[in-house]
């Protein structure tokens, strides 16, 4: 079973996205509401995909991504950045990519989220 890890300090977002993914796909979804907790889960559970909030108190999402890349055990896990900073139109215009990274804008559109997850997991 594929594993998806959500790292987001917004607890409702973690619960809601977990429910949406688990309802629509046969995946196991893990959640972390802090960057350090997310890093630990990524190292111990080696998920197939990570949804990562950029702006979080404590360790920011960008730093989490850097630490994931530095660790050979987690370096190849695909990451979708989730953020309210990028506007939906902006993300769509760039086909979901900004600076070579895949982004999804908040508020998250369900179909868009599932499509992005499918596209990354089907290529593995």
């Amino acid at each position: 079973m594929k594993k998806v890890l959500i790292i987001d300090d917004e607890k409702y977002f973690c619960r809601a996205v977990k429910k949406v993914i688990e309802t629509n796909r046969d995946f196991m979804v893990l959640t972390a509401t802090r960057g350090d907790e997310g890093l630990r889960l990524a190292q111990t559970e080696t998920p197939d995909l990570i949804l990562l909030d950029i702006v979080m108190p404590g360790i920011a999402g960008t730093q989490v991504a850097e630490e994931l890349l530095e660790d050979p055990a987690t370096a190849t896990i695909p990451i979708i950045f989730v953020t309210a900073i990028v506007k939906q139109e902006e993300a769509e215009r760039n086909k979901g990519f900004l600076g070579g990274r895949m982004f999804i804008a908040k508020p998250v559109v369900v179909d868009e989220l599932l499509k992005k997850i499918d596209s990354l997991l089907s290529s593995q």
Partner: protein
Amino acid sequence: MDKMFIKDVVPKEKVLIVDDEAHVLKLMRDYLVSEGYDVHTATSGLEAIEKVKEVTPHIVFLDIIMPGMGGIETMQEIKKINPKIWVAMVTAVVDEELAKRVIQLGADDYIVKPIDLGFLRVYVLVRMIQLLN
């Protein structure tokens, strides 16, 4: 087709806290908001009934002893409006007879103040799983 956002598919779970003590309301409200719930408050039984009609909460924390319409009467009115709403009666008194009585009259639980926030987090999380799955 209109875009469906996460919040449309999985709306925030709703909690109503009813207590005439402002500091209890604030403490519980702030904590549950930080846990990502849609939290509403009322300071009297009558206001609680209006809020129940307005927002249909999943869980109500209801103080038993309040001026005016008391907690037990308020609970019974809430259950008449919607028996599926989980009503936890809250009191500062550990009283087995009172606990039995409120459960017999239709309440779903009896909780004693002060409420530990760690307990509150797990309580709401587990009840929401029971109520929504």
